[in-house]
């Protein structure tokens, strides 16, 4: 007890800046550990869920129900040699996975996990997210170029064109959110959706919501938009020359990005940590009243739903042809978002009920 007391007084004696720094670092470490664990179990869930959809078992040998499979995979990858291709650009080859993983993790700084629980309550959080996620493409382009391999280069080129195309649609969808939320701060955007499920921005911005999520699938190079990997055409695309830890870094980045896209869809369109039953008096009075409380668990559940959609798409849809991807991005999504932005602006200016009153 006395030790705890002295610890508290020691903490209070520290300067405020130092306290903030220590608190941030602890937050960051916890966040990254949770993310890496989430990514590990995402790979497990992916194999199990797709196995279930394809009427087979999936990994079930390592540990109970195969639960230790991700760790087995990680150990295997970490102890493998990182092969450097001949005539590869050594520096860029090694820095590309680092860029991928850094941008995938850096974006989490502004995600609110619960009211006010976020690393940086930046005013321009939405812009920060767009800026950071636009960095991610460099990891892929540099990996493809530095590998000195035709397949990797083709994958990188495809990925660059695809990312640029879908980033515009994604950006427009986010403009819709900031129009509705009247703020660039993610915490305020979630608070703007207070009320029950009907107040979520997913309803007034339904087309933007779909455009955002589909663009998110395309941005993370997941099926049905995974032409950057395209194993039946260009072996494995941009990471064909990578092995061991560097390869694992690309996978970690891809899955962290998937979780990020899901988290953003939750924050911006589905009320973040808010309960869908918020404000239902009848339910609040009943024994199930805990369902109306806002909590981190709602946030996690919504993210899980979107992640499940990623796996579902993968098991359901065949891969798009490349020209169809470009057509969808430029000729379908961008016009849809622009039209909806105009309609939404009108609704916001004239305060049209029920959502913009």
């Amino acid at each position, binding site marked *: 007890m006395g030790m705890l007391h002295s610890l508290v007084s020691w903490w209070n004696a520290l300067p405020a800046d130092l306290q903030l720094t220590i608190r941030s670092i602890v937050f960051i470490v916890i966040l990254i550990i949770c993310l890496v664990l989430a990514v590990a179990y995402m790979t497990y869930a992916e194999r199990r869920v797709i196995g279930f959809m394809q009427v087979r078992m999936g990994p079930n040998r390592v540990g109970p129900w195969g639960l230790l499979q991700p760790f087995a995979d990680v150990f295997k990858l970490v102890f493998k040699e990182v092969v450097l291709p001949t005539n590869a650009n050594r520096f860029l080859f090694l820095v590309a996975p680092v860029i991928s993983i850094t941008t995938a993790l850096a974006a989490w700084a502004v995600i609110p996990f619960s009211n006010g629980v976020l690393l940086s309550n930046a005013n321009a959080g939405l812009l920060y997210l767009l800026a950071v996620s636009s960095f991610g493409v460099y990891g892929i382009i540099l990996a493809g170029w530095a590998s000195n391999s035709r397949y990797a280069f083709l994958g990188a080129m495809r990925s660059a064109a695809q990312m*640029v195309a879908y980033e515009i649609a994604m*950006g427009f969808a986010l403009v819709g959110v900031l129009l509705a939320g009247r703020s660039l701060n993610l915490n305020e955007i979630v608070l703007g959706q207070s009320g029950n499920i009907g107040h979520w921005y997913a309803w007034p911005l339904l087309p933007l919501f779909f455009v955002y999520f589909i663009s998110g699938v395309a941005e993370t190079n997941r099926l049905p938009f995974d032409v950057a990997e395209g194993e039946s055409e260009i072996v494995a695309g941009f990471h064909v020359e990578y092995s061991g830890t560097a390869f694992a870094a690309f996978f970690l980045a891809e899955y962290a990005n998937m979780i990020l896209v899901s988290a953003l869809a939750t924050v911006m369109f589905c009320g973040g940590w808010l309960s869908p039953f918020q404000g239902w008096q009848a339910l609040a009075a009943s024994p199930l009243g805990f369902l109306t409380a806002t909590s981190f668990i709602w946030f996690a559940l919504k993210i899980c739903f979107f992640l499940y959609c990623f796996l579902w798409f993968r098991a359901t849809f065949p891969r798009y042809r490349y020209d169809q991807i470009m057509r969808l991005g430029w000729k379908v999504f961008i016009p849809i978002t622009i039209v909806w932005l105009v309609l939404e602006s009108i609704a916001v200016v004239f305060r049209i009920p029920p959502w913009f009153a």
Partner: protein
Amino acid sequence: MIQQIVFIVLAALTVGSALGVITARHTVHAALFLVMTFVASAGLWLLLHAEFLALVLVLVYVGAVMVLFLFIVMMLDTDSQSLRQGLVRYAPLGVVVALIVFAEIGYVVYNRELGVSFGTPLPQAAGFSNTRALGETIYTVYAFPFEIAAVVLLVGIVAAIMLTLRRRPGVRHQNISKQVRVSAKRGRLRIVNMPSEPRPPEKNP
């Protein structure tokens, strides 16, 4: 104190990578140095509390423009030897242009009438939003210059499209919306009523 250290690091990065852009031997390296210049100058803007400009600089130039740049530069098989051929011949002109630009920058910096101020940015209240302030200025005071800039950009887009647009007759395109709208009932499937042929007379074996 910390701000000054950050400034010095960022400024050194900006200048250093800008030098890298013009000295790098490989065009891809030069383009990457340019990316680093943008990122470092975005950091400098952040120090000036201009977070909107900083983030938009990263978003537009790093996220879109430089990606396309790299896209092109990586695909081109640039022969740096032939690019360097006319260096001596054009160097005097380049030096003159550089001097003019340098003189202009010097004039802007040392002639205080143009509104360049030195020193730390004004401290703002806690709820101050740089983005909101910028938006309110652009869409009220500078509405017309803003619109003119937008029209100039639009003209640029139209011109770029017109330069690359050429009609090539005889190319078979897929019309995807037509393919999607196809319906068996509307003329896709034609059932032809053929009269049955009379049976040929059987030959005697």
